């Protein structure tokens, strides 16, 4: 019964949301180029599955690449910050500035600098994911049980071994929660970067195209596809997290 409601509740939530949307558009007879009925949007996707699937794969790849690059940089930089208070204090203002500056403002410059194509997209996507991951790594590595660290000290474990065996696993809960934030951020980054990077595929490109040519069906179907992609990413994350963090009190309650 509990299990059933855990599966049914999210579905009911989604149904109510989209039902209300459908109803409101129908009731108030909203103009079709403003907002479409969910049924119309889903029909559009249903009619052109390969088109949306193909573009989704492009955007998914960009977002994932950007995230992975950000993760690698964050692990290195964060490890240094966790080791040295000075480095942390020196890095924090830079990180905060990166975080608060709207990516739209400098995205065109990034494209000018890095050229067209994948490179600026990964750069922009990575940069937008970097700061949350960086702070998560620093806080996570520091969250390790000090007594466990001392235990390893009593057998003269190397710093590397201590990071690998104690600090890194302790940072996983932090990394997962930052990664959850990054799903949305990476998709914003990828969609936006596609507009500027003059690529000819990807959901961002399709959205831009639909706006330019006033194709509200394609616009909304592309938006739904991005949303689906993000939702799927979160679901995958949940599964990985439950397997990997089964020991963590927080993970045991996440449904």
């Amino acid at each position: 019964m509990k299990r059933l409601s855990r599966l049914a509740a999210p579905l009911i939530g989604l149904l109510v949301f989209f039902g209300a949307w459908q109803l409101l558009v129908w009731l108030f007879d909203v103009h079709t180029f403003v907002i479409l009925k969910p049924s119309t949007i889903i029909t559009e996707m249903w009619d052109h599955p390969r088109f949306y699937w193909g573009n989704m794969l492009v955007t998914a790849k960009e977002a994932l690449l950007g995230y992975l690059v950000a993760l690698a940089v964050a692990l290195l930089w964060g490890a240094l910050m966790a080791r040295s208070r000075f480095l942390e204090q020196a890095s924090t203002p830079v990180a905060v500035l990166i975080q608060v500056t709207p990516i739209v403002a400098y995205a065109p410059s990034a494209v000018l600098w890095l050229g067209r194509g994948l490179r600026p997209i990964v750069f922009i996507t990575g940069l937008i994911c970097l700061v949350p991951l960086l702070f998560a790594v620093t806080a996570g590595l520091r969250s390790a049980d000090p007594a466990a660290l001392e235990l390893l000290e009593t057998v003269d474990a190397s710093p590397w071994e201590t990071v690998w065996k104690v600090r890194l696993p302790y940072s996983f809960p932090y990394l997962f929660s930052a990664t959850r934030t990054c799903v949305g951020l990476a998709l914003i980054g990828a969609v936006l970067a596609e507009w500027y990077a003059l690529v000819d595929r990807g959901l961002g490109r399709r959205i831009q195209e639909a706006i330019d040519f006033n194709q509200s069906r394609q616009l909304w179907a592309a938006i739904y596809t991005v949303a689906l992609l993000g939702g799927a990413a979160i679901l995958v994350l949940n599964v990985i997290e439950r397997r990997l963090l089964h020991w963590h009190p927080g993970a045991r309650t996440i449904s």
Partner: protein
Amino acid sequence: MHHDPAPTPGRLPVGVPAASRPGRTCSRYQPSVPVACPPVKAGLGVEVRGVTKRFGPTTALERFDLAVDPGQFVTLIGPSGCGKSTALRLVAGLTEADEGRVEVGGGPPRAAQSGRQLGFVPQSPSLLPWRTVRSNARLLSESGRRSGRSGRDLPTTEVDALLEEVGLGEFLDAYPHELSGGMQQRVALVRAFALDAPLLLMDEPFAALDEITRSEMRYLLLRLCEGRDATVVFVTHSIAEAVMLSDRVLVMTGRPGRIELDEPIPLSRPRTPEQEETTAFFELETRLRRALRGSTPS
């Protein structure tokens, strides 16, 4: 990956009498090796001379002396904040003295660390929550720069046997969050014993346990120590625990910490629960209690 099949005899800490242990089977060695049970274990002596340790404005220890003979079970007892944990941490090499000298087996604690000669049991079990009981018990024996070369750690089968011995045989694959506090602390004990270290350092390991579990743990620790020649330095708040376990009890006074009373415990070994009800036991407890009362300024 933990052991050389043929051990080099004589890998003993310098300056320590080599106590052979005839009663013990050498299951760690391959039967074809024609060596008789080598003197793998001998307790490590501890010597602390004139140590002063300050934390900011507070002086935890001042001109503190402590000498523990190889193979002895010595307990430090005293009021909270009397510096007993600090003394233990100095011996473990987890903190450095401001003045004075700390020696473990004739060398600095750091050398004992890299020689994997310290089995440390912290106050909280500090198990890694993502590791199973078995894997937690092996944490120390599989870690450290010299791991795999020291040949001193117990083979994994013996670690499992130790876990059986402390009653965790059915929980080898359980995770710490599935265990009670007492069970977690038992894993922490095995983790230290799995190193087969000649010096065991225990910092109030049973402090967080309820009274019943606590007295069970006492006998468990006695059982584990029997047949091993390891030196043990044990820190506790409990007088009964101190008398039951130790060869010697040192009562400490606080701020700055020093030793008020050095009381030998002449009770026969192996210790049994019945000894707790003897007059000798009671008299020892009383003496310690009086010394403790004297040590706390009222």
